[in-house]
């Protein structure tokens, strides 16, 4: 145990930092920048049953302090992922979280089953919240009953703990969270992207071929913090927090709001060293905050502190 280490269902993590799904591919690109064993965990890109091309390009657009993407879950399909993408990751000492997407309950269940059977996979992240897939994808993430039913089926099929990734595009995030908790989720991942659009005055059309896309990056950080804060107070399963994290200070804030671990998405594009830099900075932050172990921070904004707050 070190000051940064923590335990979550299925995950023994050296530190609370993991790259977010879809923002790290299957790791190999980043492996040329640093040793992936440095990471607390890795969330893999979403897997579907069959290979998917995803949406047409342009698929990304920049916004103020953020970006839109409409990748549309491009991936080689679960079998290829198992055959080609997992083996190169064997050499790293880091828990892998497989992100699972689908168009139907059956697809989710099948993909989750296959991935959870892989020894390399430590946990499943159930992506019920991708805003970029027309067929079904989103409604699993916006209707509590559908989400709960899916969670239950995937839990039954999965040999590994299941984290359900919530969509922020809902009226009541706490309702969604409580529904999937009741259905057996071992943890929550939140938030996925907010649905947005960028307009091009020259073409007079949306920039993205898919018209709308998912907003990520620092712009959505306040929404993520609010949702985590609300959900953390009404569920008892751990939360992997994400949405606009770019620095160790952000990580501190997310943990205070209620996240037990933190995923870093868009920031990896801005700086390929984002994750190791954040990990590296965390220990100094603990000193600055006079805190022994990073786990003390979790839910710190609403729990009682034994040691009094720093005076301003």
């Amino acid at each position, binding site marked *: 145990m070190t000051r940064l280490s923590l335990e979550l269902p299925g995950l023994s993590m050296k530190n609370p930092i993991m790259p977010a799904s879809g923002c790290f591919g299957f790791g190999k690109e980043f492996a040329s920048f640093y040793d992936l064993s440095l990471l607390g965990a890795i969330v893999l890109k979403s897997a579907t049953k069959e290979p998917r091309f995803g949406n047409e*390009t342009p698929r990304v657009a920049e916004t103020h302090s953020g970006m839109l993407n409409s990748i549309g879950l491009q991936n080689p399909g679960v079998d290829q992922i198992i055959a080609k993408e997992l083996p190169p990751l064997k050499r790293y000492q880091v828990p892998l979280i497989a992100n699972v997407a689908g168009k139907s309950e059956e697809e989710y269940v099948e993909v989750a089953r296959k991935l959870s059977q892989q020894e390399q996979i430590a946990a499943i992240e159930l992506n019920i919240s991708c805003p970029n897939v027309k067929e079904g994808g989103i409604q699993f993430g916006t209707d509590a009953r559908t989400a709960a039913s899916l969670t239950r089926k995937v839990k039954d099929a999965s040999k590994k703990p299941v984290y359900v990734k919530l969509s922020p595009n809902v009226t009541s995030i706490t309702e969604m969270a409580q529904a999937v908790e009741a259905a057996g989720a071992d943890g929550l991942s939140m938030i996925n992207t907010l649905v947005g659009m960028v307009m091009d005055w020259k073409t007079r059309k949306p920039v993205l071929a898919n018209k709308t896309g998912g907003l990520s990056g620092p712009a959505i950080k306040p929404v993520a913090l609010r949702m985590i804060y609300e959900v953390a107070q009404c569920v008892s399963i751990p939360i992997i927090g994400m949405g606009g994290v770019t620095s160790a200070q952000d990580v501190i804030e997310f943990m205070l709001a209620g996240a037990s671990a933190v995923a870093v998405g868009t920031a990896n594009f801005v700086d390929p060293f984002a994750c190791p830099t954040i990990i590296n900075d965390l220990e100094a932050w603990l000193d600055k905050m006079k805190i022994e172990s990073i786990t003390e921070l979790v839910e710190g904004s609403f729990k009682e502190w034994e040691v009094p707050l720093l005076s301003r």
Partner: protein
Amino acid sequence: MKKECVQIVSQREIAPAIYELVVTGQIVRYMTAPGQFLHVKVSEELEPLLRRPISICDVDQQKQTVTMLYRKEGRGTSLLSKKKPGDLLDLLGPLGSGFPTNEVASGQTALLIGGGIGVPPLYYLGKQLQQQGVSVISILGFASAADIFYEEAFRSLGEVYVSTVDGSAGTKGFVTDVLTQQLITYDGLYACGPNVMLRALQQQGVKGYISLEERMGCGIGACFACVCHVPNGASTDYVKVCSDGPVFKIGEVMI
């Protein structure tokens, strides 16, 4: 593929809204392949958020400098254009796979076709080809006479044809008009420019290499923002402009 804060040596506007930026840093020593690009963080803050892909236009290994030419377009390049000598610039690169220079042999002729802000990467390519004893012919297309840049630089590599859309200099029309009007014989062709131009070339069935542009997230192959369909194979097959390209064999990619 490195990341470094390099220092700006010089920056000047060489044509309306076209800037020539020279920077120096250790990272330059990896910039040996023409056609590769750099992913540039134009601000020290988180806004604008994404890096901007800019081609390597010229490299001086002795001075350890790299030259980029860019058009001031939106927020990012506007900020970039305000940078001054001595300022730092966060570069990621060199990225992608460049132009294969061994496709034309010494004594043979290479034709470079550049349209607008597609011209820059061809310069470093032309220089390398010239050093290899290849004859270089260039066709450079611009909007008008006022927009022309680097014409002299290309003349130092060999023959240069210019086209302008409004006819104010060179052939009136597009680079493809030069290609059809002049009988140019060549052994290898390299092109970079707007998609319409590249599509026209691809349709004419010429052989050679083209450099593509696509909106990018990561620039390193991780985000799948920059994929293109490929003409043969499954409908889910693709190439990534940032890591498989930006240079592709003509016909290899659907544009």
